[in-house]
């Protein structure tokens, strides 16, 4: 995982080294943006949320007790920043029309298909999938980030994969299933 290379910077930033903190933030930026964009499905909102997350991480890094927990900890901050940003600018549809219309100018049709299918999933399935496949976190780390048991995360991942596969093979199929949350 990319973030484990930053272990020394995490320790230094936690001790108050501002240069290490800045390096950490710069290294985290692409990851935070990808996470936020995958969850939010909106690049503008993702950029705003990723910025919020980085500011929070910089402000709170001194309180991080276990440097090993940095990947899950930072992921949880990004996820919460996306949720806050979405609450500030609520969206009614699963995916903004601007994306489907090509807001990502270099986007391929296949990527849009995946992102549209992902956006059709409910958040409680979408977020674990993104944390696993985009961020590379383990079920345990995802559980720590989302405050859920790892067994629950494994169930959500399995269900999310199945729904995502169904949506990718037949985009018209409904995202809802008989499972209760």
């Amino acid at each position, binding site marked *: 995982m990319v973030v484990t290379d930053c272990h020394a910077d995490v320790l230094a930033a936690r001790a108050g080294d501002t240069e290490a903190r*800045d390096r950490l*933030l*710069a290294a985290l*930026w*692409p990851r935070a*943006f*990808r996470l936020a*964009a*995958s969850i939010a499905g909106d*690049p503008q909102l993702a*950029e705003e949320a990723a*910025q*919020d997350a*980085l*500011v*929070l991480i*910089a*402000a709170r890094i001194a309180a991080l007790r276990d440097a090993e927990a940095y990947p899950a900890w930072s992921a949880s901050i990004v996820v919460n*920043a996306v949720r*806050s940003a979405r*609450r*500030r600018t609520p969206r009614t549809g699963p995916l903004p029309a601007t994306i489907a219309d090509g807001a*990502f*100018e*270099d*986007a*391929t049709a*296949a*990527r849009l298909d*995946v*992102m549209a*299918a*992902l956006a059709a999933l409910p958040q409680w399935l979408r977020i674990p*999938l*993104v944390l*696993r*496949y*985009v961020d590379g976190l383990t079920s345990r780390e995802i559980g720590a980030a989302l405050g859920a048991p790892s067994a629950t995360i494994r169930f959500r991942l399995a269900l999310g*994969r199945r729904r*995502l*596969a169904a949506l*990718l093979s037949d985009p018209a199929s409904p995202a809802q299933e008989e499972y209760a949350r």
Partner: protein
Amino acid sequence: MNDPGERLRDAAFQLTVPPFPAARIAQRLASPRAPVRGAGGWAPLRAVALSGAIVVAAFAAAPPSRQVMSDAMVRTIERLTGQRVREVRPGEALPRSAHVHTRFPVVVPRGFEITDTLATDNGATLTIHDRKLGVVMLQERWATIPPSKLEGIGIHEDGSIRRFNVRRWTIGKIAFSVTMFDPHYHDIAERIERATRAASR
């Protein structure tokens, strides 16, 4: 490539990442304001201030009674013990544990004869008379307080010291437990659990 996870990963890594906004983040970090505006702006602060004002006004209108035991609590204990309960007067020196006892909301299982109740360190012990097994002890305590390490060995009603199992359940903030010396106790423990759940509804 059919695996949806791999397709998701590839799609995410094809995203065009905007340049790192170092200046913007440095500016926000240097700003004395809160780094991130909450979802409701000042609404949470307003709600907290309003709640505080309401509490202050309520206390001003009706100062809290210094009575430690509620009337319902006194009635419950009297009904359970068949004895008159003396109410603690304000200003009396009370150990902290006694304060906890008097505020503990004893749950009385419906349909059982309660022959005695005893305040314990963190709750109460009800003595239940069962026609089949004789005496069964129902422990009730605050669920937030861990059980004693001494549980697991006790004195049977025949006077012998035995190991026992404990059936535990929790309803709201109260943790219940019944000691079971042999398999016959499982039945009564199950019935007591159902009765306490019925009483707590």
